[in-house]
């Protein structure tokens, strides 16, 4: 299994999830600068015809104690960005999947993301953070837990507020704890 991060001079962390879930907000909470949205134009040869797509990626950074840069990416969920995933995930030490707790199909989204990321790299450390649960009195974690069980190995799954720096940091702590 590639362990690119151990040799590299940067640490790379990815926040993935559907639009509106709270990725940009979470990235803002753990980095030193305002996230910038990078618009990339990519051609898509696999489609058979010559098409180009505009991809919106969040990017921000922080600095670890010894000066190592921590690069943080936000990976959007739309299928038309699927070809970007391997590129963004390459060399990441982990992925925080951000889901919107008020979405009716949250369990399906959860399953989708776990399978996507594991298809790219089976052992990729992951955690799931669920936002907006403060606004949904009837939110239930049960269906999400059932989805995780369907996908195999356990994954730390926390409800959190993406605006709260401490809660976002705690998700990353759980991610680190799973790497024994």
């Amino acid at each position: 299994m590639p362990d690119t991060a151990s040799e590299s001079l940067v640490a790379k962390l990815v926040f993935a999830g559907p639009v509106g879930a709270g990725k940009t907000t979470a990235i803002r909470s753990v980095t030193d600068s305002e996230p910038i949205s990078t618009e990339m134009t990519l051609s898509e040869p696999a489609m058979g015809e010559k098409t180009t797509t505009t991809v919106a990626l969040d990017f921000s950074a922080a600095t670890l104690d010894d000066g190592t840069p921590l690069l943080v990416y936000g990976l959007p969920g739309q299928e038309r960005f699927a070809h970007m995933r391997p590129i963004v995930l390459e060399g990441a030490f982990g992925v925080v999947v951000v889901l919107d707790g008020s979405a009716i199909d949250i369990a399906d989204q959860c399953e989708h993301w776990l399978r996507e990321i594991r298809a790219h790299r089976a052992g990729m450390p992951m955690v799931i953070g669920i936002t907006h649960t403060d606004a949904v009195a009837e939110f239930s974690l049960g269906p999400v837990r059932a989805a995780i069980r369907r996908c195999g190995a356990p994954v730390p799954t926390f409800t959190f507020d993406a605006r709260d720096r401490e809660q976002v940091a705690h998700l990353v702590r759980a991610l680190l704890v799973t790497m024994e």
Partner: protein
Amino acid sequence: MPLELRYAGLDTAMEQRLRLATQALAAHRLQARAAAWDGTRCDIVAADPHDAYGRRVIDIARRRGTPVLEIVEALATVARLTRALHDLLSRAAPPSTQSTATAAPTTSASSTPASSPLLKMATDPTLRGADVELRRDGAVVWLLASTSRVVSASVSDRLRACEQLASNAWSIAAIGDRQRSRPPGEISASLDAFLLMGAWSARAHLPSYPDDDVGLRDWPDLGAAGTIAEALVVVQSLQRFRGTPERIAHRHGLARADVDACLWAFQAAGLLDRSATPSAVPPPTRPGGLFSRLAAHFGLRVA
């Protein structure tokens, strides 16, 4: 009048550390004096649970309701001992005693009542994993194991119930079918984090968790319990290895009382699974030399 600490079953080096830690309490405006256990009444007992004599003294102290500090490997520095003593004494003594350090802590502040919501939820088969209602002076808080949420009319009701989870200040009863359509309010939060924080703040007074082999299948929802990084380690351990509380504490250098608090909370949440088998999936790759720097950056203390 200084607080009287008695120790038992410790080796000389540990005795010395304990004496230093006792003196260091002065920095917290607590005056305490350490001496070997002599069977008389005292304010706090420090003893090694792995030592036969230490264990006997712990039993006596618990029966008398004297606060006990179990001296385990994780407490092998003066700084950690001081902090553990301070935590224990602050919980045992009313705040007024603490600031003046004149009176001894109430020795009656002892183990958690079995009628407390925490222990009832963990041990009463009719309440374990059930949806229950806590009540006190008109305040109502619902603890819903079916959705892993706490529901209340206000955040302050929830915080108060959490602080008092290991006392018998709140009555507890299963939620009946007729009530379900009338929740106490709209404020919703994680049940697992609520139970963990309640158990954690009472951990000096909780009974030891039984020496059972336990496992855990689902991760508890601990996003709102960010100050308790130890719980993450306990969860990870339960999923990877199973184990008794003692083995978990030993493996990870955690205090036994910390592990017990996590287990009581997870059991009350209906998450502990005696038949769960450890995950066969190998742990993910640790990012080599980066790991300790990342851990430091995100505030994870690792051994």
